[in-house]
């Protein structure tokens, strides 16, 4: 039987995908859940797992080609590995039956036995005794064919159920569950198996991709894993994260896209640049007053970012032209205010998007941003997390910068930075000299959309809003 594989929809708003790289060639066999193609959309790369075990018959789409979601991209002959694929690529019904019969299924057989045993020892007692029966301690391994969505309930490749502890430990130690031999009942992988595999070192199954345990969170079709740079590479091969003098680091798909977009932006949008300095003494005090309780209550660190983003969205409301895109048919002034947050994750620049940021309180922004940043650091941003930005904020001050000239995200009219906060002696309006916490805010703008007057108005509005924030405010 042949299965036609279609371009998966990597995120609700995504309509097309590009085949970045075929990981399998015609004639190669592929296991169910094994990644066989890398698809890229925007800046997300996703390794797409095969829905069936079989042999690749045909690759319909070439590398680099973009097709709509749902379009056929490959055909896999869905046969067991111990059965030769028919030369014509199609098998008769009787061959299919034979293949199914020969398909080894030791785990399901044991599960059936265990199930029978359990029922035998757990007869209901007259009088309604249902209290002493325990849960099923067999791991009723779902057969691959019978359960298409087994992965959603924490099923590892191969259909074996994994416990929360196993999944957590595998993630922490980057152990590929598919490479671990289970020592528990019915071959279940135990927590100790993971620890043993982790101790045994990379040869014993350090994940080549974190796609396997990602199945815990998303169904295979929607699996969006981190860009390739997030995954460990074999020792010796230079990577972006471990660059040494003399290295030539091969371009990953993510790095290519970053490069392309930076060049596009710089070549297309005439960048202008402006800056203001903001007295953040009061808002900094406010943050200091709230941060311990906030972190205790929410688990999220309270940084200056949510205060800054809140001020930015308020200023964007006052200057809607800043929240716009240049196109041939005119300047599109966006209804939505979706703030991109530039962060560094695993050697890549990613810009997850805080959707409808104008509808969020400072607290809401902090929580939503915290989640995005956490996802980014763990390489779990999906296409939807990265799409739809209308304006971007970059906290360059986190690394100590006091001045920067950011490149616009293509299609956006502005990007602002919050630079490092430094204490300075400041001459105030009444000629008094005071020690104040000062922060530079820099902005690049698309001069096709915005002229200097609008830009200056926006920046001084932003400055006023930030300086008006203080400990009496409400998160």
């Amino acid at each position: 039987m042949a299965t036609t594989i279609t371009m998966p929809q990597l995120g609700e708003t995504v309509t097309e995908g590009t085949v970045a790289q075929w990981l399998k060639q015609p004639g190669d066999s592929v296991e169910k859940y094994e990644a066989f193609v890398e698809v890229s959309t925007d800046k997300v790369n996703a390794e797409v797992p095969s829905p069936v075990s079989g042999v690749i018959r045909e690759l319909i789409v070439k590398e680099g080609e973009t097709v709509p979601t749902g379009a056929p991209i490959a055909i896999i002959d869905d046969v067991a590995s111990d059965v030769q694929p028919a030369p014509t690529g199609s098998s008769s019904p009787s061959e299919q039956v034979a293949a199914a019969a020969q398909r080894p299924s030791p785990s399901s057989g044991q599960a059936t036995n265990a199930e029978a045993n359990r029922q035998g020892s757990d007869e209901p007692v007259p009088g309604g005794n249902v209290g002493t029966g325990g849960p099923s301690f067999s791991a009723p391994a779902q057969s691959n064919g019978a359960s298409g969505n087994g992965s959603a309930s924490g099923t590892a490749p191969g259909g074996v159920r994994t416990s929360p502890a196993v999944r957590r430990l595998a993630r922490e130690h980057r152990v590929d569950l598919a490479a671990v031999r289970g020592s528990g009942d019915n071959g279940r992988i135990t927590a100790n198996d993971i620890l043993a595999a982790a101790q045994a070192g990379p040869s014993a199954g350090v994940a080549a991709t974190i796609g396997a345990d990602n199945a815990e969170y998303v169904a295979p079709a929607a699996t969006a894993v981190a860009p390739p740079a997030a995954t460990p590479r074999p020792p010796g091969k230079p990577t972006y994260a471990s660059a040494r003098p003399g290295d030539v680091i091969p371009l990953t798909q993510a790095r290519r896209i970053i490069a392309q977009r930076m060049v596009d932006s710089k070549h297309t949008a005439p960048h202008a640049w402006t800056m203001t300095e903001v007295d953040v003494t009061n808002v900094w005090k406010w943050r200091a007053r709230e941060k311990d309780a906030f972190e205790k209550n929410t688990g999220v660190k309270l940084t200056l970012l949510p205060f800054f983003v809140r001020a930015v969205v308020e200023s964007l409301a006052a200057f809607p032209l800043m929240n716009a895109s240049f196109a041939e048919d005119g300047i599109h002034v966006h209804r939505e205010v979706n703030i991109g947050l530039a962060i560094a994750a695993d050697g890549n620049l990613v810009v997850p998007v805080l959707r409808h940021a104008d509808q969020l309180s400072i607290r809401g922004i902090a929580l939503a941003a915290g989640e995005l940043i956490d996802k980014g650091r763990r390489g779990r941003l999906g296409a939807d997390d990265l799409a739809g930005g209308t304006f971007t904020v970059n906290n360059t001050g986190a690394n100590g910068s006091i001045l920067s000239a950011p490149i616009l995200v293509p299609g956006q009219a502005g990007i602002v930075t919050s630079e490092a906060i430094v204490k300075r002696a400041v001459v105030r309006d009444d000629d008094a000299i005071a020690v104040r916490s000062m922060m530079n805010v820099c902005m690049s703008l698309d001069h096709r959309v915005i002229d200097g007057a609008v830009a200056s108005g926006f920046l001084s509005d932003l400055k006023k809003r930030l300086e008006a924030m203080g400990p009496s405010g409400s998160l």
Partner: protein
Amino acid sequence: MAGVRAAAGAAQTQAGVTMTNVEAVRTTLHDALARDDRVLIMGEDVGARGNVFLITKGFLEEFGPQRIIDTPLAEASIVGVAIGMAMEGLRPIAEIQFADFIYPAFNQIVGEAAKVRYRSNGDYTCPLVIRTPYGGGVRGALSHSVSIEALFYHVPGLTILAPSTPADIKGLLNAAIESPDPVLFLEHKKTYRSVKGEVPAGYYTIPIGKADVKKAGSDVTVVSFGYNLHQALDAANRLEGEDVSVEVIDLRSIRPMDKTTILDSVRKTRKLLIVHEDNKFGGIGAEISAMVAEEALFDLDAPIRRLAGPDVPAMGYALPLEEEFMISTEEMAGAMRDLAKF
């Protein structure tokens, strides 16, 4: 009626001797009466009869009828009168002859005693101890076998203690008498004479709300109390021979519950078995399971397992029915083994 804590030490428990659970209850009560003349005992047959388990035998003669009070068969009155005494400065120890008889006193315990401190905004407290023997396995049938902890552990303001060894009984009964708030003190009657252990000399208390790791282990955590605890220890010791290492936690204090000890252990072993004699549905195992699932889900390497009594109205008198109700040591060993190899 002045406090006479100064008299402590005048009456000593036998120094570091081995005794049964029932002897531990008796000597601890005796010492409390001797140490503090605010302490008094009231209940059915506690005076002339000396309690049905002979716990207070001789107390009436030694301490007199004002402090050893035989009451009518009226549990609501026993607890209600004791609440009034406690609020006015005495340290009454009310006895409910069998836990099965506690229901008439439910309103006094839940509606009154547990709420005194709250209702009076701290002006009054209720330093009351309600002792009662509970549990089955002694051919007690319908009205002498019940476990009641689940009926009361839902109630804030109430402390519930259920120690299982003589040393814990002494330390926790002393703590209960010292406590400014009401304590329901549960004594498993099957352990009264079947469990022996060494009891330290002199006055001491054990902190309320602290569980005790009775046996350390690394593969499976078992949380239990009462008679079941001793079976669990037997089963765990047997499994040592099979190279299965079981950690056995004696809950001792049912409310407040020692989350820390349970969570620390589960985080180590990653597997949890809860054993209690009371029926499973809505039993304290449900609370422990929920707490562990909330706080340590990602440390669990197996489904939480509960062994508990069946959902039937009462324990049968016929031996096979009683045995069916009680959890056997073999069942416990089996559950531990299953969890270990899961």
